[in-house]
């Protein structure tokens, strides 16, 4: 058995793969945050809570209505997106004229509200969500046994991330979006309904969070607290990646998942702090972030 730095290569590859799985979540979530920040200039603290709502939507769909995972994979993000649209139309839009911090504070308050509501209805211990039948079982990769579902998570996240990147960077709709970020007045003068675009962008951004939630439901316990600690790590990911770039958010998310996985092998005590340490390093050397443009 070959050893790298005293760790058997089996264990290393296994943790790397697990890191990739976590990285997929980071990628999808930081993508959503980047999209929202790009157009609205709002840091959506509620992203974690909405990720949790997505997971619960999947659970509720199954438990109360018997709707299976595959349908919920499409329906739950739409539900979360709708909630996002309501939030934007009723609350966020009043804050655009004000200092950016108010957007952060509002979404922070929404996080507490959503978390508290779900907590009082469902308790904190979390609900079990079964792995969909198609994905059950595991494949023996030789160096580890990888549950099929986790492989699916990586594939699904990559597909969604690349699709989003394609729409934003390579289509006309994406062009309008990017133009709207640079100069909303001018874009409006061209007859494009910028407020509607903004609303739909927020809805889409949080729908991505909801999608990540459904993906997470069979792996983690569906619990009202599942989003909160995750969101702060995602913030660090976004600071490292720089919030200007879509591709940057995706790559940083995946990369950091892998780095975290490696840390769990060599120095497990530091695995929860490694992302923050990297953030500090990036701040000292490249304050705008790895892929960021100084705004």
């Amino acid at each position, binding site marked *: 058995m070959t050893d790298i730095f005293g760790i058997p290569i089996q264990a290393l590859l296994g943790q790397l793969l697990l890191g990739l799985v976590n990285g997929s979540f980071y990628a999808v979530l930081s993508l959503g945050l980047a999209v929202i920040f790009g157009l609205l200039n709002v840091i959506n603290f509620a992203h974690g809570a909405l990720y949790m709502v997505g997971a619960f939507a999947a659970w509720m769909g199954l438990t109360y209505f018997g709707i299976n995972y595959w349908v919920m994979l499409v329906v739950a993000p739409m539900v979360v997106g709708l909630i996002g649209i309501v939030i934007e139309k009723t609350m966020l839009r009043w804050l655009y004229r004000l200092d950016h*911090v108010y957007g*952060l504070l*509002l979404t922070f308050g929404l996080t507490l509200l959503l978390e*508290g*509501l779900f*907590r009082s209805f469902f308790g904190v211990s979390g609900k079990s969500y079964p792995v969909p039948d198609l994905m059950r079982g595991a494949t023996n990769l030789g160096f580890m046994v990888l549950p099929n579902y986790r492989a699916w998570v990586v594939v699904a996240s990559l597909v969604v991330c690349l699709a989003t990147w394609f729409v934003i960077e390579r289509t006309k709709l994406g062009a309008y979006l990017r133009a709207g970020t640079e100069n909303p007045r001018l874009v409006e003068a061209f007859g494009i309904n910028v407020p509607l675009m903004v609303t739909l962008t927020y809805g889409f951004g949080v729908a991505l969070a909801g999608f990540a939630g459904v993906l997470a439901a069979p792996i983690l316990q569906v619990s009202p607290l599942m989003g909160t600690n995750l969101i702060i790590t995602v913030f660090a990911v976004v600071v490292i990646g720089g919030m200007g770039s879509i591709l940057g958010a995706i790559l940083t998310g995946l990369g950091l998942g892998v780095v975290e996985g490696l840390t769990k092998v060599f120095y497990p005590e530091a695995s929860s*702090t490694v992302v923050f340490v990297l*953030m*500090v390093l990036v701040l000292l050397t490249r304050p705008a972030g790895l892929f960021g443009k100084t705004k």
Partner: protein
Amino acid sequence: MNRRLLACVVLVVIAGMLPLMNVYPIFVMKVMCYALFACAFNLLMGYTGLLSFGHAAFLGSAAYATGYALKTWGLPTELGILFGVAVAAGVGYVMGALAIRRSGIYFSMITLALAQMLYFFFLQAPFTGGEDGLQSIPRGTLLGIVDLSNDLSLYYVVLGIFVIGLAIIYRTVHSPFGQVLKAIRENEPRAISLGYDVDRFKLLAFVLSAALAGLAGSTKAVIFVSATLSDAVWQVSGLVILMTLIGGMGTLIGPIIGAFIIVLLENKVGEFGTSLARITGVEWFAGLGESVTIVTGLIFVVCVLAFRRGIVGELGAFIARRRGQSAA
């Protein structure tokens, strides 16, 4: 100015009489700690315009530092508290130096991330006791004379610390240094063009805010004879923002009122919920006690949307309007 001083003295005297009027001293001490914490935060947010989302780091590190100093090193209480303040100031210096590199929303996110990093450090480090926390911290004596294990004596000591902390903040705000901070909040490019080394002022304000927040944390550790992870968790950072927001950012007494409301809320929501359940017969209200989070979140949302000036701010605007009306 003299009227204000008289008002302050009267308030302090009233505060001093509270335990004699059968008000639970531990409750008032808790309010005072959080009020000091909120005022320290307000120094940074209300007066300098920097939203720090990581103030829990200062509360927590000071609490752990003091707890450790008192329990393991056996330092006398006053030295233990000063040690906690020093540690918090140190943490503030490092955090501030890193965060000030970016401005606006990035500044807030960095403070949040750094505070979370510190939280994870506290979770792992053996000296903090991890999930169990530091328990049975000896309260000791003040200067070898006053026995602090007596709740009443401790009360007056904490009152003294609170007054000193507020006095420091008052002096800072009403000083040339404070004026520069306000200038930075109003129009930073202009302050730079006037020749002020803005970053140095920001860092100084950050460290001062951290140190005072640390004072609140150290005192809290002595009162509750424990320092645990709940002091360093990010929800505490959010809570102190809410206290300041409700009370009124940029006002001196606003955060104190905000702290009082929030601590009262935490304590009484449970009782309010059970009485509501009894009145309406709706069983769900009885579970409201666990849902301090919901109420807190709701207040946050309402305040940000409709009540940004906070209680003291709105009151001030109201009084100004009345004066304007009567003048016209």
